């Protein structure tokens, strides 16, 4: 029976649950999904400055505690932590293995970086405009699928490292390789994609991002365990977690994750298949064991989706708090003052009150908070303009209403993300292998 674990659901995810999963369960594969859309654009900028960088900054920290377990328990680690520079990630992993005197074979999948292929004439999926309206481009990465990864398994690697690959494909590739699934069988690929989608956010299916005290209680959330799937040859899978780990897996945690970031559930598009989640059957077969079947699919698209990162200006932010009886009124006055002062510099910010309306723009229920934090934010063409936002908020200390405290200011470069399509046949993917061997 094939066992695939999910050891990270985003770039900042916790590290210990992956170690627990690798130690407590006899996994065949452990997948670490760590690459958000914006992360790769930032990594691309880093690579431009230094050709040996541009991979996930947590690469070493995350894989180091797993290294001896890979060596001892012989599972294969799969991760998209290669980000903008999978080759450099491979080299860094080999260097780490050498420093611990451990043998390691790393297969690196490349080809997702398609910046050279983008002309600007392509249409933006979100806005239907030509891409050239959104320059300068920082990065362009195709969402590769299982066909880019499958050749890597032939080398029997300890680690497969990729750049941009569709998240479910990271899980589907080992299923297809292990069972030799026919890639024309769209229903099997759809079911495998479903399992990948359910696992890709790690703790989000084991009770993470679920708890609501008294209503949706999650036992021992502090020691939340990460999930693994036991997958049969026909694609039927049981999703569970290490025994004695914290968290919960039931029908409801599975349903929340099943619809997470899904639009039309009968048409979930990946590079491998157009999956259909509408007829899925979810069954609790034991405590923290849920059986999943009924995922289906249709033929994949002829194009790759490409994620484009572009320079979108600078964001400036400033915050300051007010307390006591008239906290809200003073925060409001402070906001009006800053707005007027920034308008003189052609900066037009968004103004919000934390504790009142920062999350949704308005408060859905009325309350009179003891303290209010004013937040002012604006996106500007230049860094100098963006800096003014925080400076004007800070200046409220001696130039605004009474009793403001705890002012903070931030400015950061803003990377915008858009999508477009590229024909599959224009994208050339490759696998390279790096090895460190020690004498036994």
């Amino acid at each position, binding site marked *: 029976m094939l066992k695939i674990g999910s050891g990270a659901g985003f770039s900042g995810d916790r590290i210990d649950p992956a170690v627990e999963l690798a130690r407590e369960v006899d996994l065949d594969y452990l997948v670490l999904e760590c690459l958000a*859309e*914006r992360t790769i654009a930032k990594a691309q900028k880093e690579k431009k400055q230094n050709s040996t960088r541009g991979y996930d900054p947590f690469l070493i920290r995350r894989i180091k505690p797993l290294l001896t377990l890979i060596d001892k328990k012989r599972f294969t680690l799969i991760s998209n932590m290669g980000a903008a520079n999978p080759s450099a990630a491979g080299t860094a992993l080999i260097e780490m293995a050498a420093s611990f005197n451990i043998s390691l074979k790393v297969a690196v999948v490349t080809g997702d970086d398609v910046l050279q292929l983008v002309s600007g004439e392509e249409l933006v999926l*979100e806005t239907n405009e030509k891409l050239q309206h959104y320059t300068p481009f920082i990065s362009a990465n195709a969402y590769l699928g299982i066909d880019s990864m499958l050749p890597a398994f032939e080398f029997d690697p300890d680690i497969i490292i990729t750049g941009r690959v569709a998240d479910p494909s990271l899980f589907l590739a080992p299923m297809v390789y292990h069972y030799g699934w026919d890639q024309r069988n769209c229903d099997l690929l759809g079911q495998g994609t479903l399992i990948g989608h359910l696992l890709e956010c790690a703790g989000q299916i084991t009770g993470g*991002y679920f708890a*609501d005290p008294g209503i*949706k209680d999650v036992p021992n959330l502090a020691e939340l365990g990460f999930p693994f799937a036991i997958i049969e040859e026909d694609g039927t899978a049981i999703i569970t977690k290490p025994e004695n780990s914290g968290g919960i897996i039931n029908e*409801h945690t599975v*349903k*929340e*994750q*099943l*619809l*997470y*970031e*899904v*639009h*039309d*559930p*009968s048409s979930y598009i990946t590079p491998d298949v157009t999956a259909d*989640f*509408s*007829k*899925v*059957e*979810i069954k609790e077969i034991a405590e923290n064991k849920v059986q999943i079947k*009924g995922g289906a699919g249709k033929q994949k698209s002829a194009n790759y989706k490409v994620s484009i990162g572009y320079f*979108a200006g600078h*964001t400036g932010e400033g915050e300051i708090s007010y307390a006591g009886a008239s906290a809200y009124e003073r925060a409001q006055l402070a906001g009006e003052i800053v707005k007027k002062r920034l308008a003189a510099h052609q900066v037009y*910010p*968004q103004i*919000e009150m*934390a504790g009142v309306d*920062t*999350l*949704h*723009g*308005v408060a*859905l*229920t009325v309350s009179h908070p003891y303290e209010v934090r004013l*937040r002012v*934010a*604006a*996106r500007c063409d230049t860094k100098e303009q963006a800096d003014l936002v925080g400076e004007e908020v800070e200046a409220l200390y001696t130039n605004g209403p009474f009793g403001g405290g705890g002012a903070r200011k931030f400015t950061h470069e*803003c*990377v*915008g*993300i*858009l*999508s477009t399509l590229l024909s599959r046949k224009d994208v050339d993917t490759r696998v390279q292998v790096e090895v460190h061997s020690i004498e036994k």
Partner: protein
Amino acid sequence: MKNKKIKLYEIAHSRAGDKGNILNLSLIPYQDSHYAWLLQEVTEENVKQHLAHLITGKVTRYKLPNLHALNFVCDSSLGGGVTTSLRIDAHGKSLSSALLEMEIPPPITMKK
């Protein structure tokens, strides 16, 4: 008290997801038997009206009778998109709570 409305929060849970400037909100009843009631009471129009200040685009509702769940896809709802939005919660992750604040008449079968 006969006509007292309830919040969706009392009978269902939700998770928000983001793709670019498009938001999706799942709506999952705790009891499968409440699915039909949600289907009747929580329409595309109702959701659009409830979140009118946030959703500038179209709301599409997808039904999953097999799973007893609904999925609302809301176009142009994330302040321009995750990466360029000025909102503090640029992903709109907390919008699930905003949906659950919506009020509907209680289902007849509701145990109180």
